[in-house]
């Protein structure tokens, strides 16, 4: 058995005993070791059945002690007490929580009063976790302007995080006084995390965004057009080990007009690469798109529908997507495959307007799972590219050298179930 006593301190509330508490580990179990018992204690401890020990002794988080004294008996604790020589060990069913103060409560002797208020209390603090604190890697959208009906916010962390902090430690603030804007974010229970709890998805209250609903009529949009705001992640946000962030993080925005049109690949701008080159395919969007969905809703396929291997990057405030092939483009036809779940910042997807106005024919939903934009890579000097609106190509696009990039591959396969693809061009 190993023990750690340097970091532990015990406090006492009763002078009759001088108990010493420390943490120890045996057979893979974390234990709380309690020594310094008086001889009469030891006589009883050694003879008591485990059930009797559990009735008279309890190890609980110290902040429960006041509340515990409102109940008649010592609380039921999952774990077991072991008596070995002159020491008592508590082996909990659930591991002790780092940074938490624990108390051992010792009830009155059998035959005495049964009020937990009479319990003797000794306290020790479990050492806090150490290591580098987590930090916020990014807040999305990264565009400078949010539409009035912006729906989502993503926060990427450098380490796995704790649940339960999303609404407490993330907020919107309004310039210039930096006052929090109340009621913007929707409390979600459970919160929306990726499996590693590194990426948090927050929803702006959809009831206030959707036209016609009572929340929208009564309280208006969560944001106001023209406001300068910031999305802020407070340092209090705890990582998986219960430690705060290394620093708070924020991203500033101005609130622009609402967006209520389907995402339409026919309105994007394209710069098609020449055959034989490794030049990237560049796709510029007519509005910023949802960062998370952009990461897996676009891919490039060859004539046979097989994925083209390469790297993609996203930038310009989620306004462009660039794909660089791992091997040179061949003089052949390719397709940009678009998953119709791809959304803009306001939740409008390729399929549907977020809150569709039934009186507008142009808002009719698209009953397809995917669309495909075809293009041809021609030999240098040949300007035609079948299936491409050349008039839309490259205008307004700039080289994304300075922008954030993520090395990625478009490895997604296109299965036979995607036969409902169509050309986005009219």
């Amino acid at each position: 058995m190993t023990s750690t006593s340097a970091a532990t301190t015990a406090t006492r509330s009763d002078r009759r005993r001088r108990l010493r508490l420390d943490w120890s580990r045996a057979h893979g179990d974390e234990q709380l070791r309690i020594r310094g018992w008086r001889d009469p204690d030891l006589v009883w401890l050694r003879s008591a059945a485990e059930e009797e020990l559990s009735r008279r002794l309890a190890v609980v988080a110290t902040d429960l002690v006041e509340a515990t004294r409102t109940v008649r008996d010592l609380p039921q604790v999952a774990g077991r007490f072991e008596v070995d020589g002159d020491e008592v060990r508590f082996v909990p069913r659930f591991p002790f929580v780092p940074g938490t103060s624990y108390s051992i409560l010792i009830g009155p002797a059998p035959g005495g009063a049964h009020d937990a208020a009479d319990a003797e209390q000794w306290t020790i603090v479990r050492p806090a976790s150490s290591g580098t604190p987590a930090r916020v890697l990014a807040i999305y959208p990264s565009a400078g302007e949010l539409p009035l009906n912006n729906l989502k916010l993503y926060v990427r962390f450098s380490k796995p995080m704790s649940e339960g902090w999303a609404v407490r430690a993330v907020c919107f603030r309004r310039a210039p006084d930096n006052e929090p804007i109340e009621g913007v974010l929707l409390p979600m229970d459970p919160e929306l995390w990726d499996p590693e709890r590194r990426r948090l998805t927050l929803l702006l209250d959809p009831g206030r965004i959707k036209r016609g609903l009572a929340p929208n009529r009564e309280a208006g949009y969560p944001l106001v057009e023209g406001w300068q705001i910031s999305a802020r992640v407070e340092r209090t946000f705890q990582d998986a080990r219960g430690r705060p962030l290394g620093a708070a993080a924020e991203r500033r925005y101005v609130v622009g007009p609402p967006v209520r049109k389907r995402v339409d690949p026919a309105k994007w701008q394209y710069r098609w690469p020449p055959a034989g080159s490794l030049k990237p395919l560049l796709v510029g969007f007519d509005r910023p798109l949802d960062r998370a969905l952009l990461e897996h809703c676009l891919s490039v396929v060859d004539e046979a529908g097989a994925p083209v291997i390469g790297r993609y990057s996203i930038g310009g405030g989620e306004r462009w997507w660039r794909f660089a092939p791992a091997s040179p483009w061949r003089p052949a036809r390719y397709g940009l495959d678009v998953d119709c779940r791809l959304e803009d910042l306001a939740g409008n997807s390729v399929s549907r307007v977020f809150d569709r106005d039934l009186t507008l024919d142009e808002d009719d939903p698209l009953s397809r799972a995917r669309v495909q934009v075809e293009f041809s890579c021609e030999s240098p000097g040949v300007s035609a590219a079948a299936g491409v609106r050349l008039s839309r190509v490259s205008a307004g696009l700039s080289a994304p050298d300075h922008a954030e990039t993520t090395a990625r591959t478009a490895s997604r396969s296109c299965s036979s179930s995607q036969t409902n693809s169509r050309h986005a061009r009219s």
Partner: protein
Amino acid sequence: MTTDELKSATTGYGLAVGTPRLKSIGPITFSPDGILFVADSANATIYAIDVRDTDAPSQSQPVEVDNLDVRLAAYMACTRDDILIRDMAVHPTSMAVYLSLVRGRGGSAIPLLIRIGEGSSLREVSLEGVPFSQAVIEDAPGDDDERLDTRVVLGDQEGEEIEVRGIRLRLARDKLRTSTVTDMAFVDGMLLVAGASNEEFSSTLRRIPFPFEDEARTNSLEIFHVSHGRYETASPIRTFVPYGDNLSVLASYTCTPVVHFSLGDLKSGTQAKGRTVADLGAMNTPIDIVAYQRGGEEYVLVSNTRHPLLKMACADIDRQEPLTHPQQPVGVPREALPQQRVSRMASANGAYVLMLQQDEAGDLHLRSYDSDSL
């Protein structure tokens, strides 16, 4: 449990004795004969577990527990802040209360089930060697899912090496997209599962036949609702309850409308349109819905983050025309009940409603209300 008893428990439902390895825990619900369904979003799996709770109910009404949060924290040797209660369900015969909860946070979080029985006793529901089966949520991404976030990495510490047309790349695949189960109900041999994606904003309801088949297949249904006759929209279902001999479902969305749809609608096609019957207003989020009987009539209760506990008559819901005019009062008549700060609720065979209730000091208690008093 004896071998014979285990065999008996596993017959009929295709259950096999083993140990479900939960990575997370969310909504739970019982079938009428005591099979507990447990949602594990991180594993994209629903487990059906025979909890072998054969205790006869020892008292006429379900248990009540004062200071439930303190007792849970004491039991699990942590603070009250270290516990997140996910859901509550009542065993149909023993009337014991089951809680799904998470103890601790982040990587050290432990998902578990707690049973509250006679005398307010707490115990962990062991999942070691229990009869169970499982169904994978079909459209949640698996480990080989094409929607994984695939990164090219340097070094050899992570990922796997592949060769594409003579080029060697090392790829790491991170699963970013998840489907979080928000509520479940068991209806006539069918498990209904509502979920929310952490990416696209949609409304899907999965239907999983039980017993789960060998390769449990689920199908999902998109549900739209119309706001005031003009705006059609989708939204994740936050909580729902079947009622009316399981012919109807009342659902509450993250965008607050309360929507009715019939189970018949769910049995056909891949899309359904619900009928918006109430609109609960701003700065409020419904937490839970439960159905119960009183005087031969059926009612539902809706607990809310800001509004009081609301009671609606199912007959009024059935009569309610789709909302077409955005004026007050909006939709089905409802009555505010005096129970304060109610979060999770569960029906005990329709005769009692159990509620997790905070008092003014913030302490959490488990309360049981006779349906005739509601």
